[in-house]
């Protein structure tokens, strides 16, 4: 399992690798969906074309959009595009890089679907069975059928069990013909896509490599910065919550002391730890009051100054202590001109 763990960590190490993983999964899902999908040609003259082309084109479009929807970088890109300029300039080449890399990854699942559909042949057979050249492959003058009748008969080619035009054109001949064209189209499509991918990959270093490296770096930077910001906010929320709850219990304990008629004797030092762990709540009634108070009267989102930890710079709200160390400000700026 060590190898699996390494692969998992590698994929998670940056967003691009993670997206490559998702992209691979979607390609597999696309292949699986195609094999699970029960293709059902209607075998009626006008419906065939709509159904066949629909199955060829609509699912790839859906998969393409899904590739964008599942990609977390979409919101990052939109945010970077729409943010006010503030003190940091915006670099359109970074945005273009992000968009291109997302679009390239989103293209893979649709390409897999279209290739599988064409190589399988059912869609093209269904869509174009009424356009089979009967004159060359069959017996066009047979039985003097009208155009409409011929079309109706030809529309049933994909449905072998109800096909009744064997004298017009043999079913196997038509299916083989259409399948051959479909597979030829499929292989040409695969060849075209791989050639395009190859060209894009190999020609890029010949042009604007420096600009490309810069855009890639800054797009990774934006991604990492956003993740770190989210992590720091989560850590801050955790510390804030801990201190808030601690102060809530302390506040309860102080209230109790104030309402008791006789204050308890000062607890000796050796029971300090026990008292601390008990948070000042030592009987059932007090605990019930604490729980009720937690629901009915949550403490304000405002920490008291003595509780603010001084080790990190997140001072939250409240007064700053008198001697804060001068915070080190690390400036990071990226320049938009190469």
């Amino acid at each position, binding site marked *: 399992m060590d190898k699996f763990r390494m692969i998992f960590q590698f994929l998670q190490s940056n967003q691009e690798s993670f997206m490559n993983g998702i992209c691979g999964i979607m390609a597999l899902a696309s292949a699986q969906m195609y094999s699970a999908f029960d293709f059902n040609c*209607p075998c009626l003259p006008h419906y065939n074309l709509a159904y066949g082309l629909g199955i060829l084109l609509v699912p790839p479009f859906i998969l393409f959009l899904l590739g964008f929807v599942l990609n977390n970088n979409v919101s990052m890109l939109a945010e970077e595009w729409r943010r006010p300029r503030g003190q940091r300039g915006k670099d359109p080449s970074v945005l273009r890089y992000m968009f291109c890399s997302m679009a390239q990854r989103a293209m893979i699942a649709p390409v897999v679907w279209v290739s599988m559909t064409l190589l399988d042949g059912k869609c093209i057979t269904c869509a174009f069975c009424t356009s089979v050249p009967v004159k060359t492959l069959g017996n066009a003058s047979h039985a003097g059928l009208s155009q409409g009748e011929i079309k109706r008969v030809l529309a049933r080619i994909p449905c072998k069990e109800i096909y009744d035009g064997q004298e017009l054109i043999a079913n196997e001949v038509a299916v083989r013909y259409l399948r051959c064209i479909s597979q030829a189209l499929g292989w040409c499509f695969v060849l075209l896509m791989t050639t395009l991918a190859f060209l894009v990959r190999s020609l890029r270093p010949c042009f604007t490599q420096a600009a490309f490296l810069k855009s890639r770096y800054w797009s990774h930077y934006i991604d990492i910065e956003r993740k770190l910001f989210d992590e720091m906010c989560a850590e801050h929320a*955790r510390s804030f919550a801990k201190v808030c709850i601690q102060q809530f219990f302390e506040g309860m304990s102080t209230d109790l002391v104030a309402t008791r008629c006789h204050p308890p004797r000062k607890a000796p030092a050796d029971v300090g730890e026990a008292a601390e762990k008990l948070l000042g709540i*030592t009987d059932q009634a007090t605990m019930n009051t604490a729980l009720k108070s937690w629901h009915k009267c949550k403490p304000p989102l405002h920490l008291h100054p003595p509780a603010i930890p001084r080790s990190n710079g997140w001072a939250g709200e409240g007064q700053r202590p008198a001697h804060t160390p001068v915070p080190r400000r690390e400036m990071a700026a990226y320049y938009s001109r190469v």
Partner: protein
Amino acid sequence: MEHFRMIFQYFQSNSESVMNGICGLLALASVKMYTCFDFSCPCLPRYNMAYGLGIMFVPPVALFLCSLFLNRQSLVMLEEWRRPQGHRKKDLAVIRYMCSSILQRAMVAPVVWVIVTLLDGKCLICAFSSSVDPEKFVGFANASPAHVQQLLAKVPCKDDALMRNNTSRKAVSRYLRCWSQALGWSILLILIVAAFLARWLRPCFNQATLLQARHWSNYIDIEQKIFEETCCEHSQFFAHKCILHFFENMRQEIRQHRFNLPRDREGAEGEEALLRGITDQGQVNKLLKMWYCEKPPLDVNWVTQR
């Protein structure tokens, strides 16, 4: 099993990931449920529509409710909505954000069920086989109106005596299936386009408010978890002290009733201290009986007042 543990840890790392994980699992469960379910159309004129539409719409409602109650965030949101204001103001934007994220995730499994149903086609064939126009299909155009309804209702049942090897049945079935699949793909397309637009356009409106709402909704969740952890730790310590006190009281009681007990050795350590002065069967039985009949009060004030 280590890779399951790693995947599990990744998903537990924050509550949004947990919710996404549950949502994905429910979607897979929904597909699995559909494939395991043995669809059995009644093939009777009025029952078909009820059965077909029932199977298409009732399980999604159940899945929706299931997603809502499996999601811890819905309880957190309800609590935040209903709590009295107290010292902390309520932020409606946070509650709205939580509500919309819960609803979006809860919709996934029902939508998956509906789309799988439509792409499969059996439900629609069952529900609408009686509603097709018999004139379009050769085998049914010649039957009498009363008979044709019965025949059409039997279309979903391939093995019925009347319908076996009936080409018109296959034609009707194929026709309805084609419509069902077209509807399924169209609904999927519309939903994906809507999701895509929502993803792209959201940062264009109120991004700052959204970031704030997301942060505070996360905070509320973390705060609730930490409060529960604190209460749990407190109750552990409380219980420990309470039981110690109980044992101590028992030991004193036993000492009072026996005159010839050896003097307790001061500074008894290790296992003798763990025995806490209860050293024979009779004493243990008495202790257990006391624990059941007369539980000690929930009061450890003696800890702070000793």
